[in-house]
């Protein structure tokens, strides 16, 4: 952690199981506010579960998770709602509400959680859709959007409440290299312009190298490496080196 930076998220000895399968086993890490963490690992090693634990869609079996000053595992519904407003979540398949247009999808959090007027909501939506390159698509239904457009729409929705922390689950999965790079650019711009903390789960080593200040490698529920890209490249752990693409 850079001196003087307070952690935006702290995982403290977190464990999580689903039935007999232990997905996370006593994992601890933290990330300074305003930096970018990429979580790498083979499929089924608890990467997406980590994101859902951060935003408290899942509860850990053991351990504590801190978002700024709040320990989220035991918060009341109202306090949890307040904490979640600091977090934006880009889901793997965008998770747009398929019965609403893109405009309605984006307007929903603003209408329900802010006191913005209709004109202000329109302005914010136009601004964010312009950032993600979907300014002319706001009347479309999610089913009318391509994979890359859905990803960008999901990102736009995640940004609507100007989150301090942005969680992205496989932002480049299923996308060609150019579109994936555009998504990475959007994430990096968000981090640079708004000092947003990024936590990105990915299999895309190329993207991870571009975006990450730090990389966390999970394997079979355990954290096997944590550090900068260069530190992971020289890690003693072979799986970590292979995942970052410097070995084998």
């Amino acid at each position, binding site marked *: 952690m850079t001196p003087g930076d307070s952690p935006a998220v702290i995982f403290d000895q977190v464990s999580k199981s689903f039935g007999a399968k232990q997905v996370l086993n006593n994992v601890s890490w933290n990330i300074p506010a305003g930096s970018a963490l990429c979580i790498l690992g083979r499929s089924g090693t608890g990467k997406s579960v980590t994101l859902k634990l951060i935003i408290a869609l899942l509860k850990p079996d053991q351990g504590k998770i801190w978002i700024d000053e709040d320990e989220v595992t035991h918060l009341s519904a109202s306090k949890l709602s307040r904490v979640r407003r600091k977090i934006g979540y880009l*889901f793997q*398949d965008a998770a747009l*509400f*398929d019965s609403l247009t893109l405009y309605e999808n984006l307007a929903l*959090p603003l209408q329900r959680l802010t006191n913005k007027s209709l004109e202000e909501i329109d302005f914010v939506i136009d601004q964010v859709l312009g950032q993600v390159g979907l300014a002319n698509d706001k009347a479309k239904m999610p089913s009318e959007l391509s994979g890359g457009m859905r990803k960008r729409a999901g990102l736009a*929705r995640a940004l609507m409440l100007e989150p301090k922390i942005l969680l992205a689950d496989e932002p480049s999965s299923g996308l060609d290299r150019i579109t994936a790079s555009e998504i990475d650019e959007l994430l990096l711009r968000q981090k640079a312009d708004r000092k947003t903390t990024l936590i990105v789960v990915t299999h895309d080593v190329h993207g991870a190298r571009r975006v990450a200040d730090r990389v966390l490698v999970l394997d079979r529920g355990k954290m096997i490496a944590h550090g900068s890209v260069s530190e992971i490249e020289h890690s003693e752990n072979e799986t970590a080196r292979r995942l970052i693409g410097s070995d084998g």
Partner: protein
Amino acid sequence: MFNVFEIAGKVSLFGARALAESFRRPFEGGQIVRQLADVGSKSLPLVIASGFALGAVMTLHTRTTLVTFGAAAVIPTVQAFAFFLEIGPLVTALLVAGRVGSGIGAVLADMRATEQIDGIESLSIDSFKFLVVPRIIACTLALPILTLFMDFSGLLGGFLSESAASGLSFQLYIFRAFSEFQWSNFWPPTLKTCVFGFVIGTISSFFGYTMNEGAQGVGKAATNSVVISSLLIILLDVLLIKLIFFIFPGSAL
């Protein structure tokens, strides 16, 4: 067997929570109107067509017997009592359970499978209040209205059938249909469909909202919603009729 009681308990708690949440702000007026329109638009053509056909068929069947006993004049009365007391409420509820209940179960299960419900929660929006409560309220409000459509389309079908056979005028048909009718024959059976609507909304939402088996769970939620809702409607109908007879003894013919 234990599983049945476990599910019954969970459904009861689910329904009780929905009931409590429906009186808590925000009231989700927009969502309720949207769901009400959805329930109505999906069910209304089916209800009207079914009511009309049932009315015509019922008259064709009862006519032969009643004419034999020289009671052709009471055909409209029998038709009105049959539809307003039982056929309208029960058949409407079963049709809505099949048409709308399956849809609610499938849609919510699909939203769970595609992380849309997680998406709502991640936006600090209470997904239960946003998705479940409006659907239950919409079903509860829509059922009595749809039942009235079923009742009157049944009468219309019966009239056309009777008119074709005997040339009975519309005015006389309506007069005979309602000559023995009392308000206690109308309000309790119609309003009991609110209970049916609540059951359809709650059961369907429960199976959809709590399903977590991916794409496979969508079909399962739809099937469970229809089967359990239909069964409960028939069982509850017996209890509600006994309750109506207890409260309105005059309606027990």
